[in-house]
């Protein structure tokens, strides 16, 4: 078997780049650190393509089944015979796929940022954090051990925090970064408890053991029950809470729209293509565990995913900030992936949902990165996020226009662009299992097309708006990235994905299901036409519809008041009912006790300090007297 040890270079080089540019970034020109980071990402991208080629086409398959390869494993902390935290690299179809996605998108974002961030004061800091993020994300997907995943999971969270707060002199960015960090951290608590529960019952942290369908972990774990569900189900639901935090599932989605305060390439990399799908990835990683021990947890995954995708899609229709529309669209698409995982079974054809989810993750990474980078290009040109202040930009920015259109068509699911294929697989997988969820997802497909083209028409068509200066097309590095990603988004769907990824490693083949594909295209086209009528021709004023929908529109515009609910719960209930009394107790009882002790000590010492005369012989006399006293006392005790 091929020795894949060179894959170690892929994350490690980025780590060293981070340390180097982070420590010495101010020693040389900003452009140099940009080039260093881009070069190292380029190296890891090339190595991961080589690894993918080696894995998928040459060495990965044994008897037609993709193997799980532990490239490198190093025992780090050992708790007992079976339980240990290891560090290492694990290759299997989804980790290799994720590795390719991450390095590709990261490379594109690095190149794009060279143009986008030019002249920014934190240029070199920005690049070093991008490297840190890419390192952490690669570590997350390549980990051999669920605890290693957890560590990198937190590292991803902290680098996301750092990058959202890049413009740290802007209060909204600071509060957005804090919000993102606190919400995901809160969810990670669930993840941690889930890991501990899981390890307590399964007796291992190791992915090879945990996900082996015939292994001990799966056989042993169904015994203990708590509140009607087995302990393992609780563990998996808790882990899903962690995933929901990272992947912005309802009701932990509130941080993602705010996270758009960060630089746009960061949004493309972290909050669209890679980090937010970490939750999907983790569930896929633990998928055998979910399927065999706890269908109930999978049900939860599916329903939360479906609800979130509908919910976010409706909100996306009403937002006016271009990045927020894309953020809600991301949430909605991740919901798709969750649903698809949730309805999947284990096996080749039964695992269609699993494959479709990973497929959609792959294509989504491409077209959503493209959308964000296109949005970044627009913002770069006219310095605003509000879509109502944009219009007729196709005249000024032809390349951005075309690539953005491709991405919109891809996400709307128009053949032969990539989104069509992956979405079709998802819908096929869902209809086999649950017709109700299918209905929801079908509706969401239409809404998706509608809001994307609402965005598209408002930005690129309509009348000219007044701009401060004439919008101009972005620099060539950025355009190159847009074109490259547009090509990926257009062509990624043609990859026979089921040949590479399936839940049990056995390749299978799929074909387009016409009876589902045609209605799906239909509803997408209907959404586009509706958007065309409302926002291009303006024959029917959107405002009229807005007014007629009234309450629904307003509440969707305010994101269904979820943020307000959070504020209410934290500020009114937790702060007032719990924190205020606790603070009172701390200030009055705890503090006063301490102050009292200090005061008493001070008082007493003030009184007795005059006993210190400074006369050496007096001290000696007292010492001798005390010594004799102790002598006598001891003697007395001995005699008695």
């Amino acid at each position: 078997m091929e020795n894949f040890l060179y894959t170690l270079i892929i994350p490690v080089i980025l780590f060293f780049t981070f340390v180097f540019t982070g420590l010495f970034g101010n020693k040389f020109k900003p452009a140099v650190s940009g080039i260093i980071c881009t070069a190292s990402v380029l190296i890891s991208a090339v190595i991961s393509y080589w690894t993918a080629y080696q894995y998928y086409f040459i060495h990965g398959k044994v008897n037609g089944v993709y193997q799980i390869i532990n490239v490198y494993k190093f025992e780090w902390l050992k708790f007992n015979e079976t339980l240990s935290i290891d560090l290492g690299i694990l290759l299997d179809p989804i980790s290799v796929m994720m590795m390719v996605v991450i390095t590709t998108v990261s490379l594109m974002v690095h190149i794009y940022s060279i143009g986008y961030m030019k002249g920014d004061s934190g240029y070199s800091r920005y690049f070093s954090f991008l490297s840190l993020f890419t390192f952490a994300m690669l570590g997350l997907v390549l980990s051999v051990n669920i605890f290693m995943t957890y560590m990198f999971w937190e590292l991803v969270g902290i680098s996301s925090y750092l990058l959202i707060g890049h413009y740290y002199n802007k209060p909204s960015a600071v509060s957005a970064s804090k919000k993102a960090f606190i919400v995901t951290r809160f969810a990670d608590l669930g993840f941690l408890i889930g890991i501990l529960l899981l390890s307590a019952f399964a007796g291992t942290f190791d992915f090879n053991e945990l996900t082996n369908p015939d292994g001990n972990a799966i056989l042993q774990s169904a015994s203990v029950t708590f509140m009607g569900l087995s302990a393992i189900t609780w563990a998996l639901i808790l882990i899903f809470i962690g995933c929901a935090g990272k992947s912005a599932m309802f009701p932990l989605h509130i941080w993602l729209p705010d996270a758009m305060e960060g630089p746009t390439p960061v949004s493309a990399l972290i909050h669209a293509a890679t980090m937010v799908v970490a939750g999907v990835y983790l569930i896929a990683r633990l998928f055998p565990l979910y399927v065999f021990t706890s269908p109930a947890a999978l049900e939860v995954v599916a329903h939360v995913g479906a609800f979130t995708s509908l919910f976010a899609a409706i909100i996306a229709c009403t937002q006016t900030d271009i990045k927020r529309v894309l953020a809600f669209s991301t949430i909605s698409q991740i919901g798709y992936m969750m649903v698809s995982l949730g309805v999947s079974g284990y096996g080749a054809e039964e695992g269609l949902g699993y494959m479709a989810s990973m497929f959609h993750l792959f294509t989504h990474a491409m077209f959503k990165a493209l959308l964000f980078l296109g949005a970044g290009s627009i913002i770069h040109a006219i310095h605003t996020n509000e879509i109502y202040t944009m219009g007729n930009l196709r005249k000024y920015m032809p390349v951005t226009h075309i690539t953005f259109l491709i991405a919109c068509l891809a996400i709307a699911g128009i053949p032969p662009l990539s989104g069509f294929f992956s979405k079709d697989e998802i819908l096929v997988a869902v209809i086999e299992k649950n017709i109700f969820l299918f209905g929801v997802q079908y509706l969401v497909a239409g809404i998706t097309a509608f809001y994307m083209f609402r965005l598209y028409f408002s930005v690129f068509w309509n009348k000219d708006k007044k701009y401060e200066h004439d919008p101009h097309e972005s620099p060539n590095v950025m355009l190159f990235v847009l074109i490259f990603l547009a090509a990926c988004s257009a062509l990624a769907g043609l990859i026979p994905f089921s040949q590479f990824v399936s839940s049990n490693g056995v390749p299978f083949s799929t074909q387009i299901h016409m009876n589902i594909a045609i209605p799906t295209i239909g509803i997408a086209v209907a959404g586009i036409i509706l958007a065309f009528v409302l926002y291009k021709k303006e024959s029917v004023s959107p405002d009229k519809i807005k007014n007629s929908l009234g309450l629904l529109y307003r509440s969707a515009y305010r994101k269904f008041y979820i943020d307000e609910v959070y504020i209410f719960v934290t500020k009114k209930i937790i702060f007032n009912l719990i924190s205020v009394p606790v603070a009172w107790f701390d200030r009055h009882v705890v503090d006063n006790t301490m102050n009292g002790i200090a005061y008493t000590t001070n008082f007493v010492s003030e009184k007795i300090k005059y006993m210190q005369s400074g006369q050496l012989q007096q001290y000696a006399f007292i010492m001798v007297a005390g010594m004799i006293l102790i002598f006598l006392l001891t003697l007395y005790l001995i005699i008695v």
Partner: protein
Amino acid sequence: MSETVFYILSGFILVFSILTVTSRKILRTAVYLLFVLLGTCGIYFAMDFNFLAAVQLTVYAGGIVVIIIFSIMLTSDLQDKLEAVQFRKIFFSLLAVLIGAVVCISTILNHNFPQVTDKVLDSSMRTIGLRLLSYNEGGFVLPFEIISILLLAAIIGSIMIAKRADSK
């Protein structure tokens, strides 16, 4: 050691000890201390610790007392008498000391010390040298080394303390 020798030596020691702590001529106190040390040295000789007696003679009597006399000459006027001690102070000190001495001596006299007769003391120079540099059981090489470092530190510290603050 005969009892006579012991009593002579200890009488000598005690008398000069008392003189050391009561004499009001400061140079004389140092000389009395020298006599006490010489008496102690005689006791060591009588107990067959010849090497220790030699050390006592050279280091204590030869070294320390000389330093002390030297410093007395630096700091005191030799003609002056020390001022008399207050009666109160003498009384209380004497009381504490007498009680302490009585308690200790009565404890000592009442304690039953084991009689060791079957083992012979070997305090030849050769044994002492071997023991001092041995790191096996009964060897003292570690304290020996530590003492040497302590002496070095004391030399440096004394120089630092005693040198004039303004001299560079």
